[in-house]
């Protein structure tokens, strides 16, 4: 028999391209040395942490208050950026208007601006005695104190995570089958019904991803927050700052205990991200970062 049956041709794997060994070896070594080894160092450090240290760290009033502040503000800011992100993704993907490209490019500002610089800028805007107190004064007069309060933490977190939800939603919104929407209109669905019954289900995996990623980043953010939060223990102090403080006092065990909790949350959020990406195919891959 000369010709190969079509079935086996289709089954045969495509000829593998060269370069498997060197590229894989370099990737594995690089990731191993740069990422895995430091993570491992922290995980192994957990043996050093005695039950006593765990108990002392986790029952400390200051730590517990910081956790409440960190989790509360991160959830609030992830909620805010989810709403803003949906608005921006909607406008950027569905409407054509002058300045659309500019709006899209401006959305990358938080990715490019150093977080410490962002913190300084927010302090200037929102602190009453700030040199450019454009918003601090007016907001104070309506009873909103932003600088040196948990509200300031949320403002800083929103700045840093603003593009996350939009970038997660954009690819999915682009792929939305507009004939479905037209069918909804012809069948008499109200705009509100169309939004909740057609768009939200379609976008939900990206919304989950965007929220999770925004939450994880807000929780870990340090540079932008410390300049505007005031860092009052028990009131506007965040967990990363406590880790930094413990480190400065050479309390490695205490710092590691808190860092391990943060690391576990990072892993959990990555798990959520990967699971929702897997469940909904590859549609989400473009949206990370």
């Amino acid at each position, binding site marked *: 028999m000369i010709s190969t049956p079509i079935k086996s041709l289709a089954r045969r794997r495509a000829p593998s391209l060269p370069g498997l060994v060197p590229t894989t070896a370099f990737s594995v070594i690089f*990731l191993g040395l740069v990422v895995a080894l430091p993570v491992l*160092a922290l995980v192994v450090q957990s043996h050093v942490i005695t039950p006593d240290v765990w108990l002392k760290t986790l029952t400390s009033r200051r730590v517990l208050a910081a956790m409440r502040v960190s989790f509360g503000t991160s959830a609030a800011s992830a909620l805010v950026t989810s709403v803003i992100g949906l608005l921006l993704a909607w406008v950027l993907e569905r409407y*054509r208007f002058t300045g659309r490209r500019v709006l899209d490019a401006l959305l990358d500002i938080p990715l490019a601006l150093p*977080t410490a610089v962002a913190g300084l800028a927010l302090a200037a805007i929102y602190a009453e005695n700030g040199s*450019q107190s454009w918003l601090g004064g007016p907001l104070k007069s309506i009873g909103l104190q932003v600088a040196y309060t948990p509200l300031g933490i949320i403002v800083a977190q929103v700045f840093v995570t603003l593009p996350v939800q939009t970038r997660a939603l954009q690819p999915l919104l682009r792929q939305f089958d507009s004939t479905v929407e*037209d069918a909804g209109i012809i069948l008499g669905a109200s705009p509100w019904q169309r939004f909740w019954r057609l768009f939200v289900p379609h976008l939900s995996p990206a919304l989950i991803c965007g929220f999770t*990623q925004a939450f994880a980043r807000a929780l870990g953010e340090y540079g932008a927050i410390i300049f505007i939060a005031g860092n009052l223990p028990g009131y506007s102090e965040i967990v*990363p700052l406590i880790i930094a403080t413990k*480190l400065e006092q050479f309390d490695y065990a205490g710092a590691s205990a808190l860092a391990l909790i943060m690391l576990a949350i990072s892993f959990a959020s990555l798990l959520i991200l990967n699971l929702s990406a897997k469940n909904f195919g590859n549609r989400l891959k473009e949206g990370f970062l």
Partner: protein
Amino acid sequence: MKFDASLGVTPEIGAQVFVGSPRIAIKRSTLWFRRSLIGLSFAVVGVALVMPIIAIFGAALNHGFGTYLSSILNAETWGALKLTLLTVALVLPLNTLFALSLAWAINKTRVKGSTWLLILTDLPLTISPVVSGLMIILLYGQRGWLGTQLHALGFDVVYSVPAVILGTLFVTVPYVAKQILPQIEAQGTQLEEAAATLGAGGWQIFKRVTLPSIRLSLVQGVILAAARAAGEFGAVSMVSGHIRGLTTTLPQHVEILYNEYRFTAAYSVASILTLFAVLSLAVKAFFASGLEPAPRPNDPSRRA
């Protein structure tokens, strides 16, 4: 019935349905609704993102241009700038090389276990920079695993320049890779396989086929990674030791000045970093315009 090509499906107006001779236009939203959403978006981005940029320059130039120049042009700022540039110059090539080889390994040769490689690549995105810094100290510090070995050899990594570079490297790992992976995956392997069939070697395929097709997203990823590397604060401030003029990068220098209540100087140095960020965004936007498909001559999209 003649179908008018210019009346296709548009984002705002919806499909034009032809039933017999009268046309029914499906209206998806009203003009004022679209306009108010667009206006709201500009307002939000303006207040949340653009105003801070302006505030930095405003605060930097608060006491005139002379003060601004004198707070930038001094030995400490120059030292911080040099370390920042050195860090970027060392971190970027490594990151780019890693991103390219990871993308090749995962998408061109379909290596097994790619999920684990991707999770490790993502990890620095969700880890707090402070925790990253702590990890570097636990590993390379004088009591750390590698630290004790290196100390015996006469190298002290933590609280010196190598630690700054290692911390920055950790934080910037995902940036180039995340930018090129989706595109390289979407392209498949057909072109590369054709080139291989025609007798091209691995390096030749990469240089002539793969690299040209991803160059735009590669440039964007490198720009983002450069901006992040220059501006990394949390991880670096844990490991640098703040030795002035030696181990302080520009963001650290800004923090030191701010904590010393030298606000104008702090904002002046911050304005250098801001300028760098704005420039990199402009370059990125320039390259992004090449990624979007050129509008068709009969583009039915209406302007709002």
